[in-house]
């Protein structure tokens, strides 16, 4: 009996996992949470924005990770909307990122911001770090015109902006690739630009050294970061609802591993050897 716990058919493992996560996802349960220091760093840097400040958003995530990225992305945009007079421009470094930049534009327009004056979508640049370097050195050279074909020098939103020195904040939103590293190398190191990264959770451990080295002023970690941000803004949403499913999914895996180990320890005497994996 105990031995069987070590070799449950993977399909049963899958099915139970589905049940355990789908139920709380459909019928949400509220869970309290603790806010990470680097998320606070992000919040504070955003809070410190003054009227007239220019914020550049680099969208580098794809539909595949929308579930993880979008709750935090929306919350961060909502936070920017709360800061009056802040100018925002988007640009895109992944092929399918434009959808989310356009979503952001729509969200800002719905809140009464004027395209060209308060906001702009510059378009796509290939080659991640090459693109970042180009934008950091001269945004007008990198983008002679925006994604709608308007000449960049006619965009009021870019007035007085030349290189990364003039960016009050860079919001890098990555689900892969270099994470904040491209910005650290091309904008923070040469120009001292403040960089914030919204990253998929799996990328966060690798980005922490840059946060500790103060090359990045804040991080937001995927869905959890989204839920934390919703809490700090006081507007619960999909991010917080997902935390319930997360909780049960995690507990399920923890329970499985513990069961497998108990059964292994108990039956170890009986059978030795076998393939390690």
């Amino acid at each position: 009996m105990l031995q069987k716990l070590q070799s449950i058919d993977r399909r049963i493992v899958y099915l139970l996992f589905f049940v355990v996560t789908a139920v709380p996802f459909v019928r949400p349960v509220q869970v309290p949470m603790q806010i990470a220091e680097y998320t606070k760093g992000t919040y504070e840097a955003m809070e410190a924005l003054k009227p007239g400040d220019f914020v550049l958003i680099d969208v580098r995530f794809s539909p595949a990770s929308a579930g993880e990225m979008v709750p935090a992305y929306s919350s961060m945009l909502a936070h920017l909307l709360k800061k009056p007079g802040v100018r925002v421009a988007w640009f895109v470094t992944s092929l399918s990122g434009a959808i989310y930049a356009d979503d952001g534009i729509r969200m800002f327009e719905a809140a009464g911001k004027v395209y060209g004056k308060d906001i702009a979508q510059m378009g796509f640049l290939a080659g991640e770090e090459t693109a970042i370097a180009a934008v950091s050195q001269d945004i007008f050279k990198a983008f002679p015109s925006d994604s709608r074909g308007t000449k960049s020098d006619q965009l009021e939103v870019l007035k007085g902006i030349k290189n990364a020195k003039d960016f009050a904040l860079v919001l890098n939103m990555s689900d892969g690739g270099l994470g904040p590293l491209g910005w650290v190398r091309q904008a923070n190191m040469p120009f001292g630009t403040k960089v914030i990264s919204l990253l998929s959770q799996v990328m966060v451990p690798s980005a922490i050294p840059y946060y500790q080295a103060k090359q990045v002023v804040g991080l937001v970690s995927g869905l959890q970061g989204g839920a934390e941000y919703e809490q700090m803004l006081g507007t619960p949403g999909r991010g917080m609802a997902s935390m319930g499913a997360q909780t049960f999914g995690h507990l399920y895996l923890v329970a499985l591993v513990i069961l497998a180990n108990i059964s292994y320890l108990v039956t170890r005497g009986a059978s030795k050897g076998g393939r390690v994996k």
Partner: protein
Amino acid sequence: MQRRYQTWIVAATAILMLCEQFVKSPGLAAAAKEVRNWGLIVAAFALGLGTVNLTMIHGDKISKKKEGWFNSLVLMAGLVVFAVTGIVLGTSHKTYSAMYDTTVSPMATALFGTLIFYIVSAGYRSFVIRRLESGVILASALIVMLAQIPVGRMISPVIPDAATWLQNIPNNAGQRGLVIGAAVGAVANGLRVMLGLERNFGG
């Protein structure tokens, strides 16, 4: 001879990139930018090679009605429809975006989403303490997993603290050591290719 020319081109391109980084010169920067741009264009041309391969393998299956020919037909149809629509209308056209959103984007989400099932089954299968090494992996994974959910704090306030410590001290140190080592390795590998020690293009 062939290999020597290759090595020269590799070395010249790489040295140009290096010069752009380390030498202040507008001319060099412009040249380097131009050459990087060439790289993107050559990459775009390279896609055609892959497409020819794909078309050859599946065209052969279709024309000879080999096993799975119907799926090959589906593949070619998808290819033609998207390529033609995307070229004629442009990839930012509304119709094209809608096509992309109903097919590529859910399929990407789906496959990316199956990963968690594999993580669960791989964890369940492998996290058995047969050796001390797997015990350490298991212990740190368990602590961090519990710390990621609010329940962890309820079990014991030590859990999130332990997770933070693990993250900041050993994990950070491990990442750093791995990163430094891998970077030295990557740089050395690059130098070896530049010197023509690695036969990376056959010939």
